């Protein structure tokens, strides 16, 4: 016998006891069709913690074992264009390594990085409160299953947590956007390239000239340390924190997408070409290809300051992104799902 079970938005829902218990428990996640009917079992778009966790584990595994297509292509092109023999051996080894890692689903580099997530969250998306906890669990699980190298150390006791989590780690960058979809990106960041990131409060009077010199000097100073060829992320303006944040975000932009502003795109290309005549070469053994790309992002600056940040990304440019649609379905944007 069907009888009224609960009331929501002035609508009384009927059913047999037991049948709807699951929905009632998940009442936070129930979505109503426009005509206020309960969704059928298949249509129920419940974004659960488990779903997020599974997705994040998959993204982590994809990221550390398979480079996104734009990076793979850039490395292949680099191999073609490299003129020094030592440089060519390095690029060939990188390509072989990348292929083998993908085939065997093992991490391409033993330093699987600090685990960083970027979330573009639609303000009307459901389940946002579940992410923090689910991503932490996913990081722990991926550390065991993929496996990832435990890389989270307490800076005061020097103790390694053993599972890649700790205070503020994995770190999550949130960005609110209109809509109902959620875009989740994992960005495991290796230590070698992170160690040469640099921030400068430049002289405003020198303008773009000063910026160019700052970038060139940073690359020369880094030398072989960040496992070149590198992607150079440049962030300008805003303030000290904002410029570095922009520089890091610039590293997430695919190499085949220049800055949408044609003037900035021109500058990116100019610096990219100039850096590939500096001679550091793959792994610092000398050669043509020192960088795979230069991506610049900017914010307006204070009249008295010219903050500039240079973020380095090694050739192991690991990132993976998926979109969670309002109906709960998932689309992988950078990789084929595994």
């Amino acid at each position, binding site marked *: 016998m069907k009888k009224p079970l609960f009331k929501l938005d002035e609508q009384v829902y009927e059913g047999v006891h037991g049948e709807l218990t699951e929905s009632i428990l998940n009442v936070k996640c129930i979505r109503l069709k426009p005509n206020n009917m309960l969704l059928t079992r298949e249509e129920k778009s419940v974004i659960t913690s488990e779903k997020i966790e599974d997705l994040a584990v998959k993204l982590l595994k994809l990221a550390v074992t398979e480079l996104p297509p734009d990076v793979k292509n850039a490395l292949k092109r680099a191999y073609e264009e490299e003129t020094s023999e030592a440089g060519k051996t390095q690029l060939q080894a990188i390509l072989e390594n990348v292929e083998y890692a993908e085939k065997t689903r093992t991490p391409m580099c*033993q330093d699987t990085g600090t685990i960083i997530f970027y979330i573009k969250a639609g303000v009307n998306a459901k389940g946002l409160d579940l992410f923090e906890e689910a991503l932490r669990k996913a990081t722990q699980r991926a550390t065991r299953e993929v496996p990832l190298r435990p890389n989270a150390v307490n800076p005061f006791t020097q103790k390694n947590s053993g599972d890649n989590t700790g205070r503020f780690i994995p770190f999550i960058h949130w960005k609110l956007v209109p809509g109902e979809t959620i875009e989740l990106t994992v960005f495991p960041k290796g230590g070698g390239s992170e160690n040469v990131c640099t921030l400068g409060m430049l002289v405003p009077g020198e303008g773009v000239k000063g910026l*160019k010199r700052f970038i*060139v000097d940073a690359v020369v100073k880094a030398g072989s340390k960040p496992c070149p060829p590198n992607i150079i992320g440049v962030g300008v303006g805003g303030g000290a924190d904002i410029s570095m944040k922009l520089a890091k975000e610039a590293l997430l932009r695919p190499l085949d997408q220049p800055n949408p502003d044609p003037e900035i795109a021109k500058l990116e290309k100019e*610096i990219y070409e100039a850096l590939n005549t*500096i*001679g550091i070469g793959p792994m610092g053994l*000398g050669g043509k290809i020192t960088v795979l790309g230069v991506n610049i992002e900017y914010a307006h600056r204070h009249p008295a300051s010219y903050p500039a940040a240079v973020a380095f990304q090694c050739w192991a440019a690991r990132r993976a992104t998926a979109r969670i649609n309002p109906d709960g379905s998932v689309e992988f944007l950078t990789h084929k799902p595994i």
Partner: protein
Amino acid sequence: MAVYKLKTPISEEEIRKLQVNDVIYISGTVVTARDQAHRRALEYFKEGKPLPVNLEGLAVYHCGPAVKREDDKWVIVSAGPTTSTRMEIFEDEFIEKFKVRVIIGKGGMGPKTTEAMKKYGAVYAAFTGGAGALAAKSIKRLISLEWEDLGIPEALWILEVEDFGPLVIAIDSHGNNIFESVMKQVEANKQKVYEKLGI
């Protein structure tokens, strides 16, 4: 540029043949050692205690592998090189005392190591930074794990490898150091790059 396949133990004579930019592939025994292992090995030497492995003619690899435990065996998942400059303070003495013939790492080493390599007959071979999967592929077997108390990355992983490489000779036993000459050239190129960018 010549390509050589070497088998451990490697003799001084074989090492003296190698020139910078040559490529080698090593088969035999490679032992991982980072800062802590270098320090302890030298302490042992001072105290007259034997090392768990005789390093003469072998290759030492600056590497802290990513490993996993399967049943009760260690599996080396990824084993790329770590930055070698951290070992610069130990390496000259290390080469002198233990007669290792090949030091494998990334990023190069300094003048003290270059000098010791010339004097005692050793080379520095660069393995592609980050190419951890490729390195793991050439590891055939874990011979033994020693000094585990130093922690997984710092312990001595004694490995049997087959055709481990490509390793580019970046410091030979004749005093040549690619990293040094490249960086000198880079400093010179910098001016031209400035000009190109209108700085």
